[in-house]
């Protein structure tokens, strides 16, 4: 091989690297090990993590503990899916293309939208892209953001939009209900606002029941209405397309994707008006036919002229590698649950969370839920005589992960709780017992 390559030694293959920049010593990284040895050591390290089933997890805030059906893991473990790449050669990639097309279709139904891309990195970056898109489409630069937006999303939107010269302003929330303050929104809306972004349910878990009014106020001022959603909540709560939203984003993680200490997750991005699809970031898969057989179906990447590999500096976004495998997980998850199963899931989640909130309210010194607004699976709990940070740490010590501090939004004495279908009555009792001792 060396002879054909035209060199005498492997080192000669690197003779084009000038002396001044060639590394003349070994890398300072420990030598490699056998598969067995590495597996044993890395798994031993990972086992120091405190996770279910040994530990109970009631944390939410943008990703949430849900059950991942075995069939979903089986599908995403198919090497044909996970060891392939972007379906540039459509004829040998129909499988991934169809799976992504089905993801887009299922998400359009779930969200009530007309076009969904085949994934972005996560909710926060999708929200960042949505606000940027609103700036492009409207040519305006002020952005109104519910003050009850998750802090992670708010910070990422800031990073994404600052270079465009966009200015974020928050719209206050009602201290009693936890919902966006309609009067404050009215006051702040004007003809220089690119978009209103709010979450539903919001960061406090509260359902924004005046979402339609907010969307219509924003659109009345010529701004886009952008909503961030938890897809599981759409089992019982109206879809964004039904209350006047132009761009819907969200976190697809609860649709069959593990928490994985932060990722990979799934950024959902969809638009209501098909005309807006041309300004969207990310990949879109379309249904077409083989050139020689108009009766057969075939799938291909479409509207690629929006993307970086064609448009370069004029592209809608720089995104290339996305979260395709996670979109396949979401498509298979939604197919498994189906119309009936998905509804039952929503009913279980809302029942469990309401049961838990009520149970915690019986504890002395605890207000649960803190806000009066209706909630789905998360709710804020406040403590009369304890700091949220301390309660959070004390609970963790007892093997209960719950009450992540909500910080400045509602003071330093409240935490966020998330209850889903994975929690039993016994789990909730254990949480209540631990909280009683922690406050």
């Amino acid at each position, binding site marked *: 091989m*060396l002879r*054909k390559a035209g060199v005498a030694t492997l080192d000669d293959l690197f003779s*084009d690297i*000038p002396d001044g920049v060639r*590394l003349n010593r070994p*890398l300072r990284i420990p*030598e*490699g090990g056998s598969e067995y040895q590495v597996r044993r050591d890395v798994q031993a390290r990972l*086992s*120091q*993590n405190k996770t279910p*089933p040994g530990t109970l997890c009631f*944390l939410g805030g943008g990703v949430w503990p849900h059950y991942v*059906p075995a*069939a979903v893991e*089986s599908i995403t473990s198919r*090497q*044909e899916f996970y060891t*392939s*790449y*972007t379906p540039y*050669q459509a004829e040998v*990639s129909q*499988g991934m293309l169809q799976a992504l097309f089905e993801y887009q279709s299922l998400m359009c*139904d779930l969200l009530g939208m007309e076009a969904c891309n085949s*994934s972005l*990195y996560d909710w926060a*970056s999708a929200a960042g892209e949505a606000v940027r898109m609103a700036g492009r489409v409207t040519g305006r630069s002020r952005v109104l953001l519910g003050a009850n937006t*998750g802090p992670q999303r708010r910070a990422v939107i800031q990073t994404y939009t600052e270079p465009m010269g966009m200015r974020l302003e928050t719209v206050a929330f009602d201290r009693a209900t936890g919902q966006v303050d309609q009067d404050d929104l009215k006051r702040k809306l004007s003809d220089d606002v690119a978009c209103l972004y709010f979450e539903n349910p919001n960061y406090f878990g509260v359902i924004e029941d005046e979402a339609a009014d907010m969307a219509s106020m924003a659109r009345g001022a010529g701004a886009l209405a952008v909503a961030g959603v938890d897809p599981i909540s759409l089992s019982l*709560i109206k879809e964004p397309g039904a209350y006047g939203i132009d761009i819907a984003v969200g976190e697809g993680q609860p649709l069959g994707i593990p*928490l*994985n*200490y*932060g*990722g*990979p997750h799934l950024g959902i991005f969809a638009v209501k008006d098909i005309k807006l699809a041309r300004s969207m970031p990310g990949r879109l898969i379309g249904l077409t036919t083989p050139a020689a057989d108009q009766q*057969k179906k*075939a799938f291909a990447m479409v*509207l690629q*002229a929006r993307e*970086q590999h064609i448009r*370069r500096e004029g592209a809608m976004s*720089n*995104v*290339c*590698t*996305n*979260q395709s*495998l996670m979109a396949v997980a979401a498509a298979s998850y939604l*197919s498994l*649950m*189906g*119309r009936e*199963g998905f509804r*039952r899931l929503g009913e279980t989640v809302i029942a469990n969370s309401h049961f838990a909130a009520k149970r915690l309210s019986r504890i002395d010194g605890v207000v649960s839920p803190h806000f009066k607004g209706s909630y789905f699976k998360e709710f804020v709990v406040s403590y009369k005589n304890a700091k949220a940070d301390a309660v959070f*740490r004390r609970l*963790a010590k007892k093997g209960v992960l719950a009450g*992540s501090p909500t910080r400045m939004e509602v003071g330093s004495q409240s935490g966020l709780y998330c209850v889903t279908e*994975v929690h039993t*009555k016994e789990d909730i009792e254990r949480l209540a017992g631990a909280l009683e001792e922690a406050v």
Partner: protein
Amino acid sequence: MKKFTQASWDEPLIKELSRPGRVGNEVPSDPAVRSKFKDPAALVPESMRRASVNLPELSELQVLRHFNRLSQMNFSVELGMYPLGSCTMKYNPKVSEMIASSDSMKGAHPLQPPETVQGILSIFYDLERALSEVTGMHRFSLSTAAGAQGELAGVLMIRKYLRDHEGGARDEILVPDSAHGTNPASAAMAGFRVVKVPSEPDGQVRASKVKELASEKTAGMMFTVPNTLGLFEGEVKEVCDAVHGAGGLMYYDGANMNALLGRARPGDMGFDVVHLNLHKTFATPHGGGGPGAGPVGATRKLTDYLPVPVVTKGKGGYSLDYGLRRSIGPLKGFVGNSAVLLRAYVYIRLLGASGLKDVSSMAVLAANYLWKSLDPEAYPASHGKELLRKHEAVVSVKGELPGTAMTVAKAVLDLGMHAPTVYFPLIVHEALMIEPTESEPEEMLDEYAAALNDIYAKLKDGSLGVVPRNTSVGRVDEVKASHPLTLKVHW
């Protein structure tokens, strides 16, 4: 040539398989709680209540069959050679998948207090140290989710650093014409004007040209080494000096780092900021388009500008630091693509220092060997045929007819192998970009070269016929797919 026929299931859309009443997974529900609520949906305010969701109804087996059939219509690294240039489609060790499927990884919530996730944090810490050593950087942030996000982080860091130190007058970024599309797109997202640097006839960027283009407007330059033509940029150090001399900073696009492990480091070349694609160089699977991970590293002077969080080690153990003084902020909601980071760590542990160096030696050997095995009359080298290649080689398909590179690509698919990247870089006529990686054995490289040579001979004597014909579907009508009248983006 081997005979190959890809599965062709003519599989309906999943919605077409639906029959009312079927459920594929029994939802967990504790009767002790559920029985207390007669109609839980009534807890949603009436104005926001949803009557039903239109989802398909199938049994578990039906869902599995559907997606398994789709998977059989998808070509992958574990099925055959996949030399998609610039994508580094190498083998992904199975043991990484097994480790990443541990409950202690999958179940960890990103908001858990650090004392409950010391295991994964210690892995992040060691990974961060290893990536810094491989690139000659001071510190890495592991938070960015893909290469393009790493690029965006990098140019934002340059922007903020310059604003802090001399105001915002510098609004241009230099990008060579051979760069990936993500480079100019990332620079534009960060608010910069892109100034194109033309490469010379030998495919490389000259420092003298960079000196001409660099000015008091220059914030920096994004530079890919080796470049997308597979060539090491011989004047890289002088290019860095030229940009630094004009007051700008240097960004290293690590997309092609698979050629340089243990051989050269961007830090020693003069770069200030670096990103790596873990799904390329560090063998994490490409997932049909993602997820990946694109950590970003910096020299000491730019460390404070890294995207948060970064992992730290202190008296109380490992933790995530969100408080970097001058950080550009976060680009992702939670931590990073942690399960991808874990796989890259496993890869580094398996190979170690000398194994990583071997990876690059073998990847470069394979690229040069395959390139030299091609008929130079059919596939002339794009640039400098006397120069060594690094991770990949770019050739043109000889002949004037437009579209021949695509025809060659489709003919390759018919043989049970994946096509090279086509029509990129944009500066090469009828381009084929071939990156075999270190994973392919000699006989596979021979087979691939023979296939390309044979396809060209058939193309020339008119015997190639219609291609592809052995794939799930024949040539897909991509024009129709994007036409406003026939465009269908959901069902």
